[in-house]
């Protein structure tokens, strides 16, 4: 059987080499250094026609990353909200949550992406007639425009000051917990947090002043300039991925909360805890043990699903690299190999982290 397998592989490789030779396609990864000769409309790092395929790969990967990270964020928020809503005492709220899940889970993601995309480009007005909110948010068929800021000198130090503030808060929180565990004191340390905040902010402002300048989008000529802009492709993909994945996350959250035994609810009630504390301190921490493993696999699915952007030409990994770059170079074997390896690496990494996590939180039963 092993011999048959090796024979099969050898036969396939032999065919491939012969076919490539007859088609005059170069082999090897040398093409990564060549110029791509085309530009793309969304890039987080410098890129133009003269950049190499290697750079293109990085740009695509970053575009995959940004839509995945934001998608994960929104999907988690909506998913938790809907999942908890489906367990609500309120009949109407729980029914609405169920309907939400049934609608978005049972529609193919590709249809959802295409639907939002045509809705954005066909129904939204031209830039001159954009929907505006307070004259700073704009939505039209060229994209979504948000107010943003430009950094002036001294802005670079902000991150380190925020870091300092975080470290201070962490220290105070640790101390508060130690006190609580030591003598049961539950004194609020809000005062200390405010103090740290004031010191950091005051120090920063006196040293560098306000280092930002508002950068508002404004109509110039045929389109908006300035601010933070997102293409319709990006918005459509993000909305579809978030809604689709959130319906699965809602089901996971619901199952997780239901897995916590009823006695825990009753115990919290008997202690007289208000329902928000019951949820946050008793139920959710226990439910998370059940929720997190399937939740991570949903995150991974979302990342893999972002490849469907190829249908609406959002320039992410599959669309620019396995699409455009492949058509230009013809080096199918290498390009598909690189693309698949990236996803495979991500997925193996996730399942490795999950197994580690599972081993750590699993209930040790006797």
């Amino acid at each position, binding site marked *: *059987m*092993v011999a048959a*397998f090796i024979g099969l592989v050898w036969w*396939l490789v032999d*065919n*491939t080499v*012969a*076919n*490539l030779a*007859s088609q005059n396609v170069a082999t090897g990864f040398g093409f990564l250094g060549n110029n791509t000769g085309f530009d793309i409309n969304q890039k987080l790092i410098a890129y133009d026609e003269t950049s190499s395929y290697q750079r293109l790969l990085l740009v695509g990967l970053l575009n995959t990353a940004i839509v995945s990270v934001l998608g994960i964020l929104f999907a988690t928020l909506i998913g938790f909200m809907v999942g908890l809503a489906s367990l*609500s*005492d*309120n*009949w*109407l*709220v729980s029914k*609405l949550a169920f309907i939400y899940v*049934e*609608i978005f*889970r*049972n*529609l*193919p*993601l*590709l*249809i*959802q992406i*295409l*639907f939002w995309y*045509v*809705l954005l480009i*066909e*129904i939204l007005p031209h830039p001159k007639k954009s929907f505006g909110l307070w004259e700073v948010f704009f939505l039209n068929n060229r994209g979504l425009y948000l107010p943003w800021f430009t950094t002036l000198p001294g802005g670079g130090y902000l991150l380190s000051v925020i870091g300092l503030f975080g470290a201070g808060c962490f220290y105070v929180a640790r101390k508060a917990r130690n006190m609580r565990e030591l003598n049961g004191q539950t004194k609020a340390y809000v005062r200390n947090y405010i103090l740290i905040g004031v010191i950091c902010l005051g120090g920063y402002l006196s040293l560098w002043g306000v280092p930002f300048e508002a950068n508002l989008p404004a109509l110039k000529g045929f389109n908006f300039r300035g601010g933070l802009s997102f293409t319709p492709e990006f918005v459509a993909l993000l909305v579809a991925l978030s809604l689709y994945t959130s319906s699965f996350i809602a089901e996971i959250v619901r199952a997780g909360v239901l897995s916590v035994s009823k006695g825990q609810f009753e115990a919290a009630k008997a202690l007289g805890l208000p329902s928000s504390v019951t949820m946050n301190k008793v139920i959710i921490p226990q439910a998370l043990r059940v929720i997190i493993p399937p939740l991570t696999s949903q995150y991974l699915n979302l990342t*893999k*699903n972002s*490849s*469907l952007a*190829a*249908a609406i030409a959002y320039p992410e990994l*599959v669309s620019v690299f*396995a*699409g455009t770059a*492949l058509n230009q170079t013809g080096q*199918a*074997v290498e390009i*598909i190999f690189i*693309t*698949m390896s990236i*996803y*495979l690496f*991500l*997925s*193996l990494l996730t399942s490795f982290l999950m197994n580690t996590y599972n081993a750590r939180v699993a209930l040790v039963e006797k």
Partner: protein
Amino acid sequence: MQQVIKWSRENLFASRMNALLSLASLWLIYVTIEGVLSWAFLNASFLGEDKSSCITRPHGACWPFVTAKFNQFIYGNYPAVEQWRVNIVFALGTLGLSLLVAGRINFKKQLAVLMLTAYPVLTFILLSGGLLGLSYVETNQWGGLLVTLVIAVTGIVVSLPLGILLALGRRSELPIIRIMSIAFIEFWRGVPLITVLFMASVMLPLFLPKGMNFDALLRCLIGVSLFASAYMAEVIRGGLQAIAKGQYEAGKSMGLSYWKSMRLIILPQALVISIPGIVNTFIGLFKDTTLVMIVGIFDLLGIISFHFTDPNWTSPQVPITGFVFAGLVFWVFCFAMSHYSKSVERRFSVKGESK
């Protein structure tokens, strides 16, 4: 009336917060229903031969597009005089499935086997023809719902046995078989389907010797089936793991061979436990069939999008109506399947509790 008031007091207005939520929900329901109704009915155009009636009603659905292209959406370019063959396939499939799901018959097992073996063969003969005096219909003429269902059913029929073999392989005691199964499963589960389809459409021709070539649909079928069988394998592995160790030992102590004990003792139990998971994989597979459109196959979604370019039907509402129609069709199939899987789950959990 009093009961209604009592019920809503308990379930909708139990506290001030609850009342607020109820009112917000009512408002949400009103806005949604109002929007959907006015788009789909009040502002929609229903009759017309081309885009003219849709352009005069720019805020509503363009249903004439769907009615005018309906035949294409179902059969693609399948020759009109041969469409009865497709209809027979559809009818047999519906009959078989509804008997399996709802019928109270005592030859269910035989019917299931028949649906998984004889039905696909018959379907292939009927659809592609070239035999028994049926004229040959090339696969590039197939399209629409027909292709969607062909891909989904092939995926299901191939992935089930392949998934079982892979799941058994992953639990095998022979290291080579185990490693090969694990590598296969993890590879297909780790990559997005779209890269698999790209691979099938650009790399498969490279792997094969010159002159030997598959048609585009077959390449997609291979890609989708292999992809689905990896997911199926994991679902069935879950079922296998849930079977008590004693069952395996019982099989051994009866002196049954490995295959016999699997076939007679383990698999019947494991498969029944995994039915909800299997159906969920089917739902995922069915939704994933839409991706073949990206590599140029005209499945239901693909053919609908293709017709947006028809100059007789260029209006902003046409693509929206088209996607809503496609969404409705897919939604009905997926919802029915998930409903079925839930009812099976409920039946088993009741059985388990009554013990």
